[in-house]
């Protein structure tokens, strides 16, 4: 897949795991496993980027005698997801158009030229 597109998709995908409740690195990867084989080394830069863009907040809390970082989505982060979903309405429209064109071309008899 196109790198730039994939980057944008992963950003929103990671954000979406925080909608229900705050989460942490390991759990985000586990939650995303069914959709995307995202690795720790991919996740880390994404989290940093999202934090820099103020789409999520980070807080450190104690867990079992060690520190763990918890990520929570911000208002801007939720807005980013809404924006993504409405943008993809258009993409899906294009997708369906391309799909139906191909179907038509397959069922129609082939042109001589």
């Amino acid at each position, binding site marked *: 897949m196109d790198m730039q597109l994939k980057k944008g998709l992963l950003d929103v995908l990671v954000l979406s795991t925080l909608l229900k409740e705050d989460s942490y690195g390991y759990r985000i990867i586990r939650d995303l496993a069914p959709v995307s084989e995202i690795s*720790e*080394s991919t996740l880390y830069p994404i989290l940093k980027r999202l934090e820099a863009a103020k789409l999520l907040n980070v807080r450190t809390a104690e867990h079992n005698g060690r520190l763990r970082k918890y990520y929570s989505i911000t208002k801007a982060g939720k807005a980013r997801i809404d924006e993504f979903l409405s943008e993809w309405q258009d993409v899906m429209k294009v997708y369906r158009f391309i799909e139906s064109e191909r179907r038509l071309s397959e069922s129609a008899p082939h042109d001589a030229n």
Partner: protein
Amino acid sequence: MNKQEYLNELKYRLKNLPEPEIEKSLAFYAEIIDDRIEEGADEESAVAGLASPEAAAKEILADMPLGSIVRGGAKQVKKRMGGKPLLVVLAVIGSPIWLTLLLAAAIVLFSVAIVLAALWASLFICAAAVFGAGLLCLVQAAAEFSVGNPPLGVFSVGAALVLVSAVILLWKPLAGLGRLLLKAARLWIRKIKRLFVNRRAV
């Protein structure tokens, strides 16, 4: 590889980054390893499931702004020299010739980006200048009419119309060209960054 070995290796690969950046990266990976162990994995397999320290470092470096990588490099030199500025200068002067060549290459590459950006700026400065000249011609026309020199006044109005309309007509292609130049400059800078990151991370 156990947890400590993994973190040490990663730390070494990130040594050119600013200190807080290294700490944050190490803390992230330590937390993941601990969480994996808590989930039931033993230490060795928790580490084995991660990307190699090289790969992890490469991802981190690729996402850093070029500035902090270069600053980190300078920090490294300073650290090695014990922070004595004279020694740093001597080291730079006395360093093997390839370092100078590398630096020269980097400067040449960077200057290409600057030239692209300058071209972009000059496009718009030219457009603004022609537009401004057109407006001035209008002022000139008003002056000529007021001192009773209609032929020159009419000439000035004509000149003003030609200049202003040229800018308006050419605006769209000009803006397109400008966008193209900016894009090229940005791509170029990203390429240079790659060059740096790969050289340091691998």
